[in-house]
Each structure stands twice: as C-alpha cells, then as structure tokens.
C-alpha cells in the first residue's frame, strides 16, 4: 500500500516536472509576443493558471468541509486544511503577479475592480480560516469551526463577486476566446502544469499531516502505557 503510494507520488512528480518545463518553454519561447502589451503579457499565463488553482483549492476546501461535518472523518479535515493553506499561497501569488502585470498595462498597481477586490476578500476569508484553527481552544473544535468557515466563505464568493461587479469593474473579461491558438495552447499547458503542482503539493502536505498525527498517536499511547 505504502509502496504503491510512493510510486504514484514519483510518477506525479516526474510528470509535474516535465509539464512545468514544457510550460516554461511555451510561455517564454514558443508563445508569440503580444502586440499591444509586449513581453509583460507573458505573466498572464502564470496569473491565470495560479488563479484557477487557487479557486480549485478553495473548492476542494468547500467539498472536504461538507464531508468532514457530515462523516466526521479526520482525513477530510486534513485535506481541507492542506488545501486551504495552498489556496492562500496561490491567491497570494495571484495578488502579486496581478499588479506586476497591471502597472505597465493599466498604469496602476491596483484598482478596486470586481475581480481584484473579490480575490482580496477571498484571500482575507481564507486567512481567517487558517487563523481560526490556531485560535480555537481545542483542535477538534478548530476543525469544526474551520469547516463552517470553509462552507460559508465559499458560498459567499459568488455574492461578493456579483456585488462588486455591479459596484465597478475594469478587469479584462475572460479573453480565452480571443486568444490565438499558440497562446491558448500555452495557457492550457500552464494551467495543467500548475494543477498538477497543486495536486503534488496537496498530496505531500496531507501525508506530512498524517505522519504527524501518527507520531502524536504513538507518543500518546506510549505515555499512557508508562502511566499505568
């Protein structure tokens, strides 16, 4: 069982590396330079891929939170927690790559536009998700609280987006339809590479958490034996 899992990890890792190198090649060498924006547009391939993965991560949190509250299996909580951590990391990267792109193109680092603001609110919600675990008085309670926030936060996303969209918007609309085929290919490979990266990281993080739990369990059982 463990050997098979290690083998699967290795295959995923190899595939991920290959895909990431392919994505880098496509982004920096293969894809044509965008006419109006120039080379800075190449950050788009990372920006969109990161945003997609961030959203995927929070969707995983949402699903695992529901499953945790329903089945009460700690494994779901472990996945949700790891996924939330990764989601926050990826959202942070989205919020960093965005301004780098926006500055030369829009002339500003930041604008209070629908997607930008919604992403920032999303980031804040899941930072709170991670904080609530740390501040909960017991670990199991923290897991339950986090699950509740994982559900409430995710349901909130479309409403936040709609509200801010009606408020104001500047962000370029999803322009996948207008992309030339070489750009589209680059984007798709980049998205696939980052999705695989997410899966590898999630798997790694979950297995570390499981090992931690196992060590704690062994330690506790040993302590108990000594006491009696």
């Amino acid at each position, binding site marked *: 069982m463990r050997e098979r899992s290690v083998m699967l990890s290795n295959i995923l890792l190899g595939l991920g590396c290959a895909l990431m190198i392919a994505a880098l090649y496509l982004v920096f060498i293969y894809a044509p330079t965008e006419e109006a924006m120039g080379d800075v547009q190449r950050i788009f391939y990372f920006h969109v891929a990161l945003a997609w993965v961030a959203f995927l991560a929070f969707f995983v949190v949402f699903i695992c939170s529901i499953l945790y509250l329903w089945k009460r299996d700690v494994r779901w909580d472990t996945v949700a927690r790891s996924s939330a951590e990764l989601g926050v990391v990826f959202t942070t990267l989205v919020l960093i790559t965005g301004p780098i792109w926006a500055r030369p193109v829009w002339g500003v680092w930041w604008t209070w536009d629908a997607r930008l603001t919604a992403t920032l609110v999303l980031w804040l919600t899941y930072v*709170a998700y991670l904080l609530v675990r740390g501040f*909960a008085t017991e670990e199991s309670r923290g897991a339950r609280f986090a699950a509740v926030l994982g559900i*409430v936060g995710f349901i909130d996303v479309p409403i936040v987006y709609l509200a801010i969209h009606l408020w104001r918007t500047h962000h370029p609309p999803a322009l996948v339809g207008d992309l030339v085929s070489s750009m589209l290919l680059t984007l798709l490979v980049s998205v696939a590479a980052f999705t695989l990266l997410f899966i590898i990281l999630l798997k790694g993080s979950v297995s570390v958490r499981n090992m931690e739990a196992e060590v704690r369990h062994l330690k506790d059982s040993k302590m108990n034996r000594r006491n009696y």
Partner: protein
Amino acid sequence: MRELFTRVFAIFWKDLLSELRTKEVATSVLVFALLVVVIFNFAFESGEDTIGLVAPGILWVAFTFAGVLGLNHTFATEKENSSLEGLMLCPVERYVIYLGKLAGSFTFMLVVAAIITPIFLVLFNLPLCLPRLALIIVLATVGFTSVGTLFSALSAHTKAREIMLPILFLPVVVPVLIAAVKATGVVLDGGAWSDMSTWLQILVAFDIIFLVVSVLVFEFVIEE
C-alpha cells in the same frame, strides 16, 4: 410552527430581559456608534460638497463596527457564566437557539440603528427620508446578524474572541456593506426606487442564503 415560534421567543425574551436589566451593551454600543460618526466627520473633513459622497459610508461603517461590538456579546455573555451549557441542555433543536439569539441581536441592532440614523441625518443636514432608509437598514441588519450570530458563537470558543469575530465577520459581509452603502447613497440623493432595486435584491439574496446556511451549520459550531 407555533411551537417553534414559542421556543424561539423564549430564548429571545431571555436575552432581551437580561439586556433591559443591565443595559450594559446597548449604552456602550450606542455611544461607540455615535463616536464613529463623529470621528469620521474629522477624518473626511466633510464639507457641504463632499458630504453626499461620504455620508453613506460613514453611516455604514458606524453600523458595522457597532454591530461587531454588539455581536461579540451575543455568546460571550453566555460563555462567561457558563450558561451556554444550560442553553444547550434545553430540550430544543440547536437551530432554535440560533434563531432565538438571532432575534435578540437583530432587535438590538435595530434599536441602535433607530437611534443613530436620525442623529446622523440631523448632524449632517441630510434629508430625513426615513421609510426607505428603514427598509435598507432592516434588510442589511438581517444579513449582518445572520452571519454575525453564527460567527459570534464560533468566536466565543476561540482564544482572542474580540479580534476573531471581526476577522471572520467582515470579509463575509462585504456584499451587504456594498449593497447597503450604494442603496443608502441612492436614497440620500433622492434617487428613484428602480435605482436601488438591484441593491435591495442583493441584500435579500444574501439574507436568505445565509439564514439557511447558518441554520444548517449552527449545530456544528456549538456542539461539545
């Protein structure tokens, strides 16, 4: 249905009674909300020309912060005297406790709003267009308190609950805040009903969604 109402009302009445006897929270929150309005007046240096732009924001920031302060008490007081255990021993479903607490917070925030809003309108020389403003306040307060009561129960069990509640609460109520500020802006400008209907729809949608979600997940928050 009738039975449910009686049970919710019992919890609501308990909260109301204890608040009426101490008046601790109401006075402090009221003074705080008034202070926010006054402080923001300095921060924005609101003259005749800018007041229309900043007034809705000032009002809703005051409500939001005052709301956080009040909501902190919703479950904190139960926790302090270990009366939460007593409440949980009541032979009622968990969501009844939620609804009772929600009714309490809602009434409480509405009272604060009913006092603050006229003062605010007078202080900033704004038209006293209360009926439409009242509708916005009621809808937004349902949104605030439905999420707030859930998070208040949640943060009562955390170490730094005074800071945990706003950290959890504020990002989630962003849509309510936007819609309320925009709709208030329309009302204060003397705009038409149709201009604010979109915002009212967002408020109603938020209220319904989060009432349902909160009722569903509340039992996981206070279970031991």
